[in-house]
């Protein structure tokens, strides 16, 4: 059993037929973590005792044949910005020092109800702000394909864990690409659902109109299986949509005949790595060979997307991060004097540089005298970006782009230049702004590093993008795995 290749559906088959028990599978994953995580650093917290207890519970269900789902007994990593009751949750920040949530995020609760086994909390950029996981207050995560390179971000720990056999699947969160980008850089499948598809209750908020939780998995079938478990209306999240959840595995039919694929020229940006473009174009040729109808389209407001996003997201973040004030939880510096000193010193000591930068940017954009020129303007541009997609989906069923303009870059390469780092998201931020679903699936290689193809769909049409990804995946060569 090769943990780097073991999918949820294969694990389920082994568990259901009792070829392996959940406790042994969890032990194997914990051993793998022990073996490689000193190097990869995918995890902030590993929970061996709780995971073995959960695995024993899963074995009981499997033995009785009661309450068994495809996820029962399957080890999962949870990005450390989702609340896990009784397990410290850090958001990779010093300002949440000591915080142990008294409740589970809904997505976490749903995985537990399905019998999944949480093995630990995965590393991320602090408060999900970043594209490389280098902004973690603790340590960067290393890309299993090349240890000198970033795994992408902000869900870098989640993606690295899946790629390197340290979890069978993972949950990440995506505000501007933070599930899709690391999936692309690590050779995994990653999906950002439609805004409102998955509950945000218990997901530590970064930008409330953009955030979504999504699966990071080894293949498309696994993505569908996780979506089945976590999607759906939640009474505890007022922004969750009351839209029925189909069985996403029913979408896994390798048939794209007549599927209309739009390819926006604007996503093949100047500065795109030529091998990345080639890999995506080859994938499109494959889809055409399978019967899809590929045509070039235009999403004219794409070039304004990064500017619009990097006003809206920091603005919302500045409001969401106001709660880290030393009053109710986490770091609290009390040097004497009044509450003002506590606020300022706690926040100065507790937040990292990128978080401070975004709070400052966001506060400025919302402040009196600047609100119209920045925040309101950015929101209007957001409307234009959404309208581009609405128009495109009149004649296309899905839209295909590269997930990123390059493959994984080196650790340290972009960290000193915020603007260069923000450009990493040029292909992904539009999707959050429009609220549509998007998925990254591996489609090739450049310099031995994975390239991801992004497939976008209409709101609540995850089924069609899963079908397109599945058809492509089943028709192409089996993915390679990183060297041991």
């Amino acid at each position, binding site marked *: 059993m090769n943990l780097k290749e073991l999918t949820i559906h294969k694990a389920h088959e082994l568990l259901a037929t009792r070829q392996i028990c959940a406790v042994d599978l969890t032990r194997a994953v914990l051993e793998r973590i022990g073996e490689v995580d000193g190097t990869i650093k995918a995890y902030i917290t590993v929970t061996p005792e709780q995971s073995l207890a959960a695995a024993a519970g899963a074995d009981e269900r499997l033995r009785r044949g009661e309450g068994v789902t495809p996820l029962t007994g399957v080890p999962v990593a949870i990005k450390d910005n989702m609340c896990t009751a009784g397990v410290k949750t850090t958001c990779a920040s010093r300002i949440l020092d000591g915080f142990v949530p008294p409740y589970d995020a809904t997505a976490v609760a749903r995985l537990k109800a399905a019998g999944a086994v949480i093995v630990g909390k995965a590393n991320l950029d602090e408060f999900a702000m970043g594209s490389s996981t280098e902004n973690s207050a603790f340590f960067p995560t290393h890309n299993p394909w090349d240890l000198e390179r970033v795994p992408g971000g902000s869900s870098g720990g989640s993606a690295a864990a899946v790629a390197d056999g340290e979890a069978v699947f993972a949950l990440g969160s995506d505000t501007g690409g933070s599930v899709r980008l690391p999936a692309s850089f690590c050779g995994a499948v990653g999906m950002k659902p439609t805004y409102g598809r998955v509950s945000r209750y218990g997901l530590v908020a970064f930008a409330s109109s953009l955030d979504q939780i999504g699966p990071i998995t080894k293949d498309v079938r696994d993505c569908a299986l996780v979506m089945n478990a976590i999607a759906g209306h939640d009474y505890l999240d007022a922004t969750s949509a009351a839209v029925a959840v189909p069985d996403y595995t029913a979408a896994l039919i390798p048939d794209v005949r007549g599927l209309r694929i739009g390819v926006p020229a604007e996503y093949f940006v100047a500065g795109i790595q030529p091998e990345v473009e080639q890999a995506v174009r080859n994938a499109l040729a494959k889809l055409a060979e399978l019967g899809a109808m590929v045509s070039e389209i235009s999403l004219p407001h794409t070039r*304004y997307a990064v500017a619009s996003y990097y006003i809206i997201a920091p603005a919302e973040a500045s409001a969401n991060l106001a709660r880290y004030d030393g009053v109710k939880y986490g770091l609290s510096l009390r040097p004497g004097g009044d509450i003002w000193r506590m606020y300022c010193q706690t926040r100065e000591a507790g937040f990292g540089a990128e978080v401070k930068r975004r709070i400052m940017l966001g506060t400025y954009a919302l402040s009196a005298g600047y609100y119209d020129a920045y925040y309101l303007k950015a929101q209007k541009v957001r409307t234009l970006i959404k309208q581009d997609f609405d128009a495109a989906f009149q004649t296309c069923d899905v839209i295909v782009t590269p997930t990123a303009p390059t493959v994984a870059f080196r650790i340290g390469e972009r960290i000193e230049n915020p603007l260069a780092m923000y450009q990493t998201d040029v292909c992904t931020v539009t999707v959050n702004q429009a609220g549509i679903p998007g998925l990254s699936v591996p489609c090739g290689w450049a310099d031995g590093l994975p390239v991801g193809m992004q497939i976008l769909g209409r709101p609540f049409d995850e089924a069609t993008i899963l079908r397109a990804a599945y058809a492509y995946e089943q028709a192409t060569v089996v993915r390679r795995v990183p060297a041991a």
Partner: protein
Amino acid sequence: MPITRRDVEHVAYLARLGLSEAEVEVLVRQLDSILENMQILGELDTTQIPPTAQVLPLSNVMRPDELWNPLDQQEVLANAPASEEGFFLIPPVFEENPADL
């Protein structure tokens, strides 16, 4: 309009964010450069375009006015940096000597 030191200090005040001298200097440069890049949005005529605050057609999402299980007070206070008799303990909001105001 370039970002000045005064702008950075004012925004930090609004955000209740302490900044070291070095941080202020770096932020003046970085914010100026980032905001310079945002000027591209000025190319678009958006006078007739409504803003998008959120993408779903949801408003006034209500729930029935019924009790449900709240978090246990002790569990919540377990995370508190300081607490007393069921309250979060905080430094004074106002200085003790009103003459300082």
